C-alpha cells in the first residue's frame, strides 16, 4: 500500500470519527470533551492535505 493510500485511509477514518463524535455530542454532549469533534475534524483535514501532497510528489 502506498503512503498516500494509507494517509487517505486515515484521513477518511478521522473525518468519519469526527462525524461520529459530533453525533454523540448531539445525543449527549457530556460524553465527549467539547473540542473532541473539532480536533478530529482538523486532524482529518490535515491528513487529507498530506495525502494530496504525497500523491503530488509521487506523480
Amino acid at each position: 500500500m502506498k503512503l498516500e493510500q494509507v494517509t487517505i485511509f486515515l484521513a477518511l477514518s478521522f473525518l468519519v470519527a469526527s462525524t461520529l463524535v459530533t453525533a454523540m455530542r448531539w445525543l449527549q454532549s457530556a460524553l465527549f470533551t467539547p473540542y473532541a469533534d473539532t480536533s478530529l475534524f482538523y486532524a482529518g483535514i490535515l491528513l487529507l492535505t498530506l495525502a494530496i501532497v504525497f500523491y503530488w510528489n509521487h506523480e
Partner: protein
Amino acid sequence: MLPKVFAAIIYLVAVCYFALMIAASIFVWSLIFTGNVYISAPTNIDGIPFPQPNNETLITENLAHSDIVIHQPVFAKQLNLTVDFIPRRTASLSVGIRQNQFWLSYQPVTFYKNETGRDITDPQTASITIDLTDKLAAADQSLDLMFFTDNNDPLKALDENNQTALWTLRNINAHIKTTQPTILPTIRFLRGILLRERAV
C-alpha cells in the same frame, strides 16, 4: 465489476471500523483521568455569591450551589469531597450532586449532625464520597453541587420562611477517582444518553 464494488464496500467498512475505534479510544482515554477538579465559589440558588470574609464563605441560606468542572464523562467516576467548615448552630449539613433535568433533583448525603444545639466554632473536616455515573453533567462537563442546611429534603430546604442557615465554609476540595460502576447507575447513564437528558 463485482469484485471492485465488493472491495469498495470492504474499504468503507474498514474506514468506519477504524473511525469507531478512534472515537471509542477518545472516550476510553477520558475515563481513566483522575485528580483534583475545579469547584466554583458557592452561590445561593439565584446565583448571588455568599459573603467571603477572611477568604471563608459565610453560608446564609439553606441551599448553597457550586459548579464542579470535571472535563470528563461521569461514567465510572467517583467524587471525593473534603469539606473544611465551621458548623455554628446548624443541626445538619448535607451535600448532593444533581441527578436529572429537574433543577432540585438531589439525593443529599449528610456529613454533619449536631443535636445539642450548641454553637460550635471549632473547624471541622468531613469527607464525602459520591458516585457520579448516574449524575447529570452539563454540556461543558460540569456538575451541579448543592449544600443543604438543617434539612435533608431539598423541597423543605427551599422553604423561604425557614432560611435559618449560618455556617462557614472554610475550604472545599473536589477529587475525581475511577470506580467500577454498578448496574443500576449504568442503566441510568445509558438511559440519560438515549433520552438526551440535558441540564437546563
